[in-house]
């Protein structure tokens, strides 16, 4: 799945060709029946065709008009099918790319006795254990139980940079069809053939598993109801016409019916839904159901992890603050020494800062007689022992305990600095040399650029953002303030997150969150939209209803936007479709009755040439508008972050008022054209 395939042009020649074929296949009444509006169009087309055959057989006059009406009625049904086929076609192209990743592979299955056997990947079952070495494809979805490896996951993510997968922790899940680039891992298979992630993904993008979403069902009911009303209006019109001595032909009646029933939205509805899923996939997010995409539009509260979403993910050393009587160089030197073996981003940033501030060059790790003391959960310190010095850095309370009485005189000053840093949102790390506190390293969270603007936009749309962090409340408050989130949850445990979600939901709100760890799984399952990171554990992926292949927590915001866009597109086209009917009445009703009542010409406000041209123009417009709106249905209406009131005003103006006006112009133009070329 390359970049280019993700952003396909709407009218891709290959897709169009296939869609044309599928449009014909979909005329099968059993398929059409699922869409009541278009089914009525098909029944109407069959009726006019039968009457046309009778007319031709009996040599009736005026069949030219009847032929054209019948043709355009069929086109209406075909165009709707074409729209759906186009949307599906785009998914199919993606599925084909995925299938390539599903090449036949063999697996080294580990037997109970420690022996290995080579089997086909298709024979693997849950709980089998396989060994995958560098250069081999991982034969199925699973969890690494031993080893660490760099894996090329470009087949599913499109991202060419390899990712690290290792046993234990939150990065243990591997996906079948991806390739191990280095090292060797033992993998416990977690899915049977045909149920793997790639299988599911193919089914999703192909729309094979597509079920109508709740809102789609409701909208379909509305459209079916409107169709029945119009059916009534048209069927009863014939008796009224007969009473008025102006009985109508079946062609005109069916034409009126097809023009009135909401074919525009009826024809595009499923395409809009498929395209919505497709847009998510283009953002490398897989939604497990369309329901989740709809829910995304409704989200009231976004739970965002601080790290990686709001901040750059890693704190950086920004300042060394020495205690009185200690020089900055002395502190910098000790800080750098203590961090030489510290491979965490924080540790590295300390080394870099010391280099910048005091031109202390990075020293060789292999200093003689240096023993590096790694960070442990018990001591909560790390550092180095060398040349008889014991250099340590760590959390303030840990160091305080460590220095014991030695630091007594410095306690007050130290506490003051530590508190000041914490209050400003930073993380203080105290450095001590031979149990003597030297000073404090100020680690700072860096808020990502542009986050404040995005949160402002979300707020304008009525969405509350809550930052979740393991930091203490003071730190959390400061970052929350800097980033502009509405609320924060400090020292958050998975239970806290769960409680927060339940509390919001009890108030009737819909909550979205991202997560990757196994301990996030319950919260992901509880949330209305739970986006699991692809790098996360299998449990997290199973619990969420979306998976982000890029494992980018900021994506949650885009997911919400895509959900909203999907719903907006549906609403806009429904409004447009209904508003269109006004013009169609003004075209067809005078055309039907000017023969009996010439005064009804007054209603022919468009000045259409003849009754035949008027009916024909309305039918042609009705069919062509479906084609004209396919790009809008597939791309979605333009999304803007603004309040609901402003959005409504804007969209009502464009699609409501536009829907009233556009067909008057369109029908008039078509009428002029077909009159000019002598079709009517």
């Amino acid at each position, binding site marked *: 799945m390359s970049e280019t395939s993700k952003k396909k042009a709407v009218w891709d020649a290959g897709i169009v060709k296939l869609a044309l074929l599928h449009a014909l296949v979909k005329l099968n009444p059993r398929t059409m029946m699922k869409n009541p509006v278009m089914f009525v169009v098909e029944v109407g087309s069959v009726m006019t065709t039968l009457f046309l055959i009778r007319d031709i057989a009996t040599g009736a006059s005026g069949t030219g008009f009847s032929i054209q009406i019948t043709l355009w009625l069929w086109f209406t049904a075909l165009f709707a099918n074409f729209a759906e086929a186009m949307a599906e076609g785009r998914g199919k192209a993606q599925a084909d790319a995925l299938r390539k990743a599903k090449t036949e592979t063999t697996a080294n299955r580990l037997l109970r006795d420690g022996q290995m056997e080579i089997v086909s990947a298709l024979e693997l079952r849950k709980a089998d254990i396989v060994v995958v070495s560098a250069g081999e494809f991982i034969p199925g979805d699973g969890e690494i139980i031993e080893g660490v490896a760099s894996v090329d996951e470009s087949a599913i993510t499109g991202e060419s940079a390899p990712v690290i997968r290792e046993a234990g922790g939150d990065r243990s899940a591997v996906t079948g069809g991806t390739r191990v680039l280095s090292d060797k891992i033992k993998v416990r298979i977690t899915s049977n053939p045909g149920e793997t992630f790639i299988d599911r993904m193919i089914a999703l993008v192909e729309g094979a598993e597509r079920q109508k979403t709740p809102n789609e069902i409701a*909208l379909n009911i509305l459209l079916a*109801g409107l169709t029945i009303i119009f059916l009534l209006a048209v069927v*009863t019109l014939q*008796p009224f016409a007969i009473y008025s001595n102006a009985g109508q032909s079946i062609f005109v009646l069916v034409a009126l019916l097809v023009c009135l029933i909401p074919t525009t939205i009826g024809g595009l509805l499923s395409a809009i839904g498929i395209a919505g899923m497709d847009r998510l996939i283009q953002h490398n997010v897989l939604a497990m159901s369309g329901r989740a995409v709809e829910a995304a539009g409704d989200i009231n509260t976004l739970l965002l992890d601080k790290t990686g979403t709001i901040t750059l993910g890693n704190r950086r050393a920004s300042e060394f603050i020495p205690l009185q009587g200690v020089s900055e160089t002395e502190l910098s030197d000790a800080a750098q020494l203590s961090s030489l073996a510290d491979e965490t981003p924080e540790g590295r940033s300390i080394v870099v800062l010391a280099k910048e501030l005091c031109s202390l060059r990075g020293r060789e790790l292999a200093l003689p007689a240096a023993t590096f003391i790694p960070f442990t959960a018990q001591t909560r310190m790390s550092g180095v022992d060398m040349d008889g010095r014991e250099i340590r850095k760590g959390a303030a309370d840990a160091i305080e305990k460590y220095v014991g009485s030695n630091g007594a005189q410095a306690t007050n000053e130290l506490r003051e600095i530590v508190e000041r840093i914490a209050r400003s949102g930073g993380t203080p790390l105290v450095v001590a040399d031979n149990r003597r506190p030297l000073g404090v390293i100020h680690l700072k969270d860096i808020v990502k650029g542009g986050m404040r603007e995005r949160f402002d936009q979300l707020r304008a749309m009525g969405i509350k953002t809550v930052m979740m962090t393991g930091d203490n409340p003071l730190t959390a408050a400061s970052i929350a303030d800097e980033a502009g989130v509405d609320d924060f949850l400090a020292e958050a445990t998975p239970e806290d997150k769960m409680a927060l979600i339940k509390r919001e939901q009890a108030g009737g709100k819909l909550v979205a969150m991202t997560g990757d760890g196994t301990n996030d799984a319950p919260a992901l399952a509880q949330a209305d939209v739970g986006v699991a990171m692809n790098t996360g554990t299998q449990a997290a992926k199973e619990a969420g209803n979306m998976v982000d292949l890029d494992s980018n927590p900021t994506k949650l915001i885009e997911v919400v936007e895509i959900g909203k866009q999907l719903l907006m597109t549906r609403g806009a086209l429904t409004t447009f479709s209904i508003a269109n009917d006004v013009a169609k*009445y003004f075209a067809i009703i005078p055309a039907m009755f000017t023969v009996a009542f010439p005064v009804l010409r*007054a*209603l022919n406000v468009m000045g259409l040439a003849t009754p035949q041209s008027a009916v024909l123009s309305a039918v042609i417009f009705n069919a062509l508008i479906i084609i004209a709106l396919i790009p809008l249905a597939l791309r979605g209406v333009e999304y803007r972050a603004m*309040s609901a009131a402003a959005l409504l005003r804007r969209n009502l103006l464009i699609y409501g008022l536009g829907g009233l006006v556009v067909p008057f112009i369109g029908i008039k133009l078509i009428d002029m054209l077909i009159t000019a070329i002598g079709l009517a």
Partner: protein
Amino acid sequence: MTLDGWLQILFFLALIFAVTKPLGLYMAHVFNRERTFLDPILRPLERLIYRLTGVAETREMRWTEYAVAMLLFSLVSMLALYLLQRFQNFLPFNPQKLAGVAPDLAFNTAASFTTNTDWQSYVPEVTMSYLTQMAGLAYHNFVSAAAGIALAIAFIRGIARREIDAIGNFWVDMVRGVLWVLLPFCLVISLLLVSQGVVQNLKAADTARLVEPQKIEHVAEDGSRSLTISTEQTIAQGPVASQEAIKMWGTNGGGFFNANSAHPFENPTPLANLIQMFAIFAIPAGLTYTLGRITGAQRHGWAVWAAMAALFLFGATAAYRAESRGNPLLAGTDQRASAAQPGGNMEGKEARFGIAGSALFATVTTDASCGAVNSMHDSFTPLGGLVPLANIMLGEVVFGGVGSGLYGILIFVILSVFIAGLMVGRTPEYLGKKIEAYDVKMAMLSVLIFPLVILIFTALSSVSPRFGTSSIANPGPHGLSEMLYAFTSGAGNNGSAFAGISANTNWYNTTIGFSMLIGRFFVIIPVLAIAGNLGRKRSVPPSLGTFPVTTPLFSMLLVSVIVIVGALTFFPVLSLAPVVEHLLMVAGKSFS
């Protein structure tokens, strides 16, 4: 059109605006079972009723139980009225010695008064005894109105409640509706009307000697002419004022006399006319405030009120304009308003009400599902007559019938929210309640029933010379209007007659009877289903992302949806009836 006429219309709307809040607040108290100033008198009476009937006043009902109670109550009441009419000749209070009512007419009338329609296929003063009028018809005027209000309140509760599977107690809502909302106000209105000259007695008709004997020429079917000279006039009377009050206050509309509110004993003065129109709109307008009050969205209540007011002004203006212009076929006659004459099309109108008073009354009575008339809608110009017809076709949601107007417009609110709500990028929600498939299904059902009944029965009548077209007085488009109006009025539970159609036939009595029953109960059941379903739902707290239902834009949207749904459904038939008739009239053609 005159300044005086415009002032009448605007003053009337100002009065309705003024009554909305106090009456709405009062009704909110009544149905929340909170204290009101009438409690000292009415509470003991209410308790007595519950003790006698065994109603547990604090027990609430699910929507299904509420619906069954309402249906059973209506069925029993309807049967009672049917029997009362059939056997009125054996019963007291029948000084005119009127015979029992024929079965088809008795069915039609029973259906009519049970459904708050008050369609009258008969001439009341020569058909119904005083007992039938007071114990049968007036009783129904009260209970059918109370049932309407109860349903609206149940609907409001459904919107306001959260995760509660009950929408109130039908019996309690009925009793409180009658005792607190209907009776006391009717008492006051009756007295006001009596002060204007409306009669109230139980005497048989008087006869008066004519000052100038009238010659009446009859033309028999064979063409022979005969002449009768009339020297006496029968002056019908009876307990009119009490009937009149509930006829208006409960948007019933069934007149004591055939001429309805055009009759000087029913509606003697312009002030009486104003009181009557005010009485029609007061409760429906007040209920919009009750809606806002109980749901805690007061501005939404006003937004609904504003949509109604806009539609009202539009209709009143159109009718007033059309009637003031007069009839172009009478060119050469002076039809201008002057000090000496009201001008315009005065055919079928009372001189004491003039053009504005008649056009306004016609608009008000059809905006609401009242159906009382103070002028003959059949005699309106085609466009003037289109206004009452269109008002009913829109579903009588412009203030509307007592209760039915509110739940009617709330169905349109739900549809508006559903259609346009998606455009704000959320699944549709109304005052915190998600509008889902079930709600849409029920809303569509109740919207569908109405055109179904009207269009099918009118279509059948229009192509059936034996049953349908034989009853119409005028051929051509106007005849179609007459049939269309009859079924529209029936299905819409309006009850006003376009007249010009002999509706007292087996066919019309039966079909209009069914139209009324279907138009009422098949709409109510989905309405209650929605109420029950909404009450069970969680509520989403409002935010900036919530679809706004309190803004002028929303009111405009609501008006557009009501007009577009109505227009799309009825435009074809209307274009063959009043529209073409108007165009023909302008072109100088008439039918006879």
